[in-house]
C-alpha cells in the first residue's frame, strides 16, 4: 500500500467518526467507562498487593507482659520463646521504647495526644516482639507462647496479640476485588464492542453505494475494509486516551490527598504505575475498537 492510499484510509476513517456523531460518542464513552473501571481495579489491586506484602513482612507477635514482672522472669521468658523452633527473632521492648514506637506511628497528631504521659505515668506494659520464620505459623506460635503462662506460677504474660487473620482477609479481599473487576470489565468490554460494531455498521450502511461502486471498478477487499478498520482503531484509541487522562488525573489527586490526609496509607507513586497501566489501557482500547469493527466488516460488508 502506498502512503497516499494509507492517508486516504485514515482520512476516510476519521471523517466517518465525525459524520456518525452521537453514535461515535456513545462508542467512545462505552470504551471510556469500561477502561476506566478496569484502570481503577488495576490500581486498586496493585496498591492492595503492596499493602498485603508489606503486612506479610510485618507479621509478628506482640507479647505484652504484666506490669509487675521481674527482670528474671523476663529473661526466662525470653529464652523460652527464643528456643521455639519456629521463632526467628525475639526482641524485648521496654515501655519507654513502646511509647517511642507509638509516637512514631501516630506521627504529628500523636505528639499532642501522648504529651500528657511522662516516664512515670506511661501506661504501656513491657513487651516482646516475636518474629517467626514462616508467616503461616504465627497463630500456632502465639498459642504456644500463651501456654507458657500455665507452667509459670507468676503468670507473667498479660496478652498475646498478632494479626489474627487480617492478612488472610486482605488477601481474600484482593482476590475477590480482582475477580469481580475482571467480570465487570469483560461485560463492559463486550458492550463497548457491540456499540462499536453498530457504529461501524451504520457507516457501512451509509456508504453502501460508495462501496458498490468501489467493488465495481475493481477496488480490492482490503482497500474497502481499511477505512472501517481505521474507524474502529481510532474510536478505541480516543477512548483509551480519554480514559488514561481521567484516570491519571484522578490518581494524581488521590495521591496528593492521601499524602496530606491519609498518611498511614502508603500508595504506589505515580511514576511506578503509569507506564504499565497506560499501555494496558491503550492496548485494550485499540483491541476493543478493532475487534468491534472487524465484527461489522465481516457481517455487513460482503466484499
Amino acid at each position, binding site marked *: *500500500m*502506498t502512503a497516499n492510499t494509507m492517508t486516504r484510509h485514515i482520512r476516510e476513517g476519521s471523517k466517518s467518526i465525525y459524520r456518525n456523531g452521537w453514535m461515535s460518542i456513545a462508542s467512545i464513552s462505552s470504551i471510556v467507562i469500561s477502561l476506566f473501571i478496569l484502570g481503577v481495579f488495576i490500581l486498586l489491586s496493585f496498591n492492595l498487593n503492596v499493602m498485603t506484602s508489606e503486612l506479610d513482612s510485618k507479621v509478628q507477635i506482640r507479647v505484652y507482659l504484666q506490669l509487675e514482672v521481674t527482670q528474671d522472669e523476663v529473661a526466662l521468658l525470653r529464652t523460652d520463646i527464643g528456643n521455639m523452633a519456629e521463632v526467628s527473632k525475639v526482641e524485648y521492648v521496654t515501655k519507654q521504647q513502646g511509647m517511642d514506637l507509638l509516637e512514631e506511628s501516630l506521627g504529628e497528631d500523636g505528639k499532642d495526644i501522648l504529651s500528657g504521659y511522662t516516664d512515670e505515668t506511661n501506661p504501656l506494659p513491657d513487651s516482646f516482639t516475636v518474629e517467626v520464620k514462616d508467616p503461616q505459623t504465627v497463630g500456632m506460635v502465639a498459642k504456644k507462647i500463651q501456654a507458657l503462662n500455665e507452667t509459670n506460677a507468676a503468670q507473667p504474660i498479660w496478652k498475646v496479640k498478632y494479626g489474627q487473620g487480617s492478612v488472610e482477609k486482605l488477601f481474600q479481599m484482593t482476590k475477590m476485588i480482582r475477580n469481580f473487576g475482571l467480570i465487570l470489565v469483560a461485560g463492559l468490554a463486550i458492550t463497548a464492542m457491540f456499540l462499536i460494531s453498530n457504529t461501524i455498521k451504520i457507516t457501512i450502511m451509509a456508504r453502501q453505494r*460508495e462501496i458498490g*461502486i468501489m*467493488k465495481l471498478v*475493481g*477496488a*480490492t477487499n482490503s482497500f474497502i475494509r481499511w477505512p472501517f478498520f481505521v474507524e474502529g482503531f481510532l474510536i478505541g484509541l480516543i477512548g483509551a486516551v480519554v480514559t488514561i487522562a481521567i484516570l491519571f488525573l484522578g490518581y494524581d489527586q488521590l495521591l496528593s490527598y492521601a499524602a496530606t490526609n491519609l498518611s498511614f496509607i502508603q500508595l504506589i507513586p505515580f511514576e511506578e504505575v503509569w507506564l504499565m497501566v497506560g499501555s494496558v489501557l491503550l492496548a485494550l482500547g485499540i483491541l476493543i475498537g478493532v475487534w468491534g469493527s472487524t465484527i461489522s466488516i465481516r457481517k455487513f460488508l460482503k466484499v
Partner: protein
Amino acid sequence: MIEMQDVWKTYQDGSHAIRGISVRIEKDDFVYLVGPSGAGKSTFMKMIYREEVPTKGQIFVNGFNIGKLKRRKIPFVRRNIGVIFQDFRLLPKLNVSENVAFAMEAIEAPKKIIKRRVPEVLELVGLKHKLTSMPSQLSGGEQQRVAIARAIVNNPTVIVADEPTGNLDPETSWEIMRLLEEINYRGTTILMATHNKDIVNTIRRRVIAIESGQIVRDVIRGDYGYDG
C-alpha cells in the same frame, strides 16, 4: 473478448434466468442486448462482471474463467470492465472530477496519474467545463457522461451498459450513443442492454436477442425486432 459456453444460471427458488447460452463476443464488437423485461439480459451482463456466478458452464472474459475466479482476483478482472447503469450511480457528495477520480483512487492509482487522467477523460465525454460541478447541478445526460467517464477512466477492454439511455430524452440519448460509438471506435468492446428501438434500428450493430434465458437471435447488423 467474452466467451460463454453452455452457461446456466438457476436462482435459489429454482427459476432459470439463463438456460444454456453459448456466445462469443469479439474485441471490437458493439453488441445490443435486446429482449423483453425479465428475459435474462441483466443476469447475462452481471455474470460478465461477476456480480452473479453461473450455476453451470463457463464464462471467459479476457481469458479469465470468471466462474472459477479466486475471490481475491475478482477486483483485478473487474478493472478491465467498465459498467454503466440506467440510474448513473454517481456519488452525490462528490463533484464531477472527484466522482471520476474515485474510480482511480479505488484501484490505488498514483496521484500524479489521476490528476492528469481525470480532466483528459472528462474532456473526451465533453464535460471539460464542469469539472467542479456537483451531480445535482447536472442534467441527466451530463450525469450519464460522468458515469461513462468513470467507467472508462481505468482503460477497460469491455464496457457493459445496462440501459444507459433508459432515463434520458431522445436527443440526449443520441449524444450518449455517439459517445459510446467513439469509445468502441477506440477499441473497447461494448455490450449494451436496451429497449430503445430507434437507436438499435438506426445505429446498426450486432443484435443479440434473449428470451426466457436463451439466445433466440444473433445478427451481425440486426434490427430491434420487437414492437415499441
